[in-house]
């Protein structure tokens, strides 16, 4: 597509993009979407990252940066000032995208996951971060000034949405492959005022945790107490 045809499509594309972003932000922020959560034991077990099939945040950021930059360049060269495009807004958008990507890099470093379903709750323990916890019947948990989290199912996909102050949204979408041998965790970070979310796909495969030489548990009043595991030679 070249010349006038491309020029005519630009406002439409921008409109579609803005509408899509608006929908995503609304999805993250609209309280009426909240409903009770139901525990399903679809992902239970230990999972470790498969680096070969996972996206690298820095590569993804570089790619998105290039695509977005060329998009802004095209718009600016088309000099369609009605849409408010200017070198300044383009730079701001790119800066926002880079920031979301940098945050994405920070929060997708998890190398192992343990998913545990209880009678009333589903917990996703991450080796490098806090536990993602979904409680049955609870639509939303947290403190407004710090962040709110909500869990929901979309068919067999588990979505954990976190809404942080300052117009920031984080979404973790867990999907199991048909054979059940891979767990894809798609993490999207959205920022109010940035034209697109930053999404990273990380693939996890099941593993059997080895017998620990030490078995540790938290004991109230004593802290972490470790003992020699049953399988260890003393």
């Amino acid at each position, binding site marked *: 597509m070249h010349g006038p045809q491309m020029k005519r499509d630009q406002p439409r594309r921008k409109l579609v993009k803005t509408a899509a972003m608006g929908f995503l932000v609304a999805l993250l922020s609209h309280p009426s979407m909240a409903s009770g959560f139901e525990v399903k034991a679809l992902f239970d077990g230990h999972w470790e990252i498969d680096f070969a099939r996972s996206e690298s945040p820095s590569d993804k950021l570089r790619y998105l940066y290039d695509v977005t930059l060329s998009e802004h360049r095209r718009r600016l060269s088309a000099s369609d000032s009605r849409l408010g495009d200017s070198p300044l807004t383009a730079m701001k958008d790119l800066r926002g995208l880079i920031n979301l990507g940098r945050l994405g890099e920070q929060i997708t470093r998890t190398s192992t996951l343990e998913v545990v379903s209880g*009678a009333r709750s589903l917990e996703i323990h991450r080796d490098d971060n806090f536990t993602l916890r979904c409680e049955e019947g609870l639509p939303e948990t947290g*403190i407004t000034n710090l962040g709110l989290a909500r869990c929901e199912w979309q068919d067999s996909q588990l979505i954990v949405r976190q809404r*942080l*102050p*300052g*117009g920031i949204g984080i979404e973790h979408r867990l999907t199991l492959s048909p054979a059940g041998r891979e767990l894809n965790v798609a993490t999207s970070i959205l920022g109010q*005022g940035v034209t697109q979310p930053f999404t990273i796909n990380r693939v996890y495969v099941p593993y059997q945790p080895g017998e620990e030489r030490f078995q540790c548990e938290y004991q*109230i009043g004593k802290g972490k107490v470790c003992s020699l595991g049953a399988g260890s030679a003393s």
Partner: protein
Amino acid sequence: MTSNRQQRAGCSRYAAGWLGLLARLAAVVSLLTLVACQTPPVNPNPVPVDEGVLRTTVLSQSNVERGGQSLLDVSIVLFQHETDALTESEARLHNAERHYFPLLFKEVLDQSGYWGAVRVLPEADVGSELECEGRILHSHASELRLSLICRDATGAVWLDKTSFQRTGEMDYLDEQMAVQDPFRPLFYDLANELAAALNNRFADSAELIRATALMRYGIALAPDTFSAFVRPVDDRFELVGLPAKGDPMRERITRIRESEYLFVDAVDDAYNEVLIDMVGPYRIWRQYQYEFETYNQLLGADDRVGRQQLAFDYDALLGAYRRYQDYRRNQDELEEMADSLNRSLAPTLAEVEGRVLELSGNLAGQYRMWRSLLRQLYREEGGE
């Protein structure tokens, strides 16, 4: 004869006069309303803010000789927890608190010296002289809110109160925690109110309460025989007569009740073990919970970030995420500690339940079974 036109004109003048009057009245009313709105009535006695029970509250202790009068026995039923448990471990913790707080109240009543035997029971006891039922409305490290109702055997309400206590940093200092539970003053307050009710009522109603309690206990075992002595009137129980002193029927029921007390005391001892084992870990748990809650409040109090678009300032963006991460890690740690507390309490609770299993099943079921055994005993002794 006036024409229709004249009549209409007359009516118009009449109506116009009324309208004018109404308009003037409306103006006066509006003026008065305005004046009333501009000068709100000043309450000469402003309602003070309820700060709840103060941590300085002291327990009133009996120093009165009751002239040979025996003291009233008190039964405390395990409390109901009315707050919604958000997590599984919180639900287990609620079960522990249902035991802990009545036991703490029992300890305080014993300490006050106003009462005879104070017992904690798994369910309501029809034969009790004075019975207290409590509901936990809010239970957090920073605030405990309870509702307590105490009735005597005649159905008279001695105390019906919703009370709360807020705690502060001072209450959770190690040296303070070693001395007493942070919420003990709340139970002092309730015990003091109950003691005040006792001083107002005891002298003229003690015998009536005891006799009614015995007859209501008799009804539970042999309704056909004892129903004639007590008449229910609305929520109250009116004693209409008593078997004569020395009556074998009365002696039998007294004897059976004594044997029930022996059993209830055994249950009570088992519950006491819960309290002894729970005190240490539960206080530490509360201490941690208080620290985390205070820290989370501090984190949440900084609402500057909520007013700007953080995506364009990486340091602010990362800061907001780190704050949320801190908060969630605190929650994780609290959850782990709640699990740990439940793990440390489980053997004690299981032991209590196990002991009860030797007799019947669970504690409430066992209590009912015990009653039916006593009823059988009464019949076999020729009571019916």
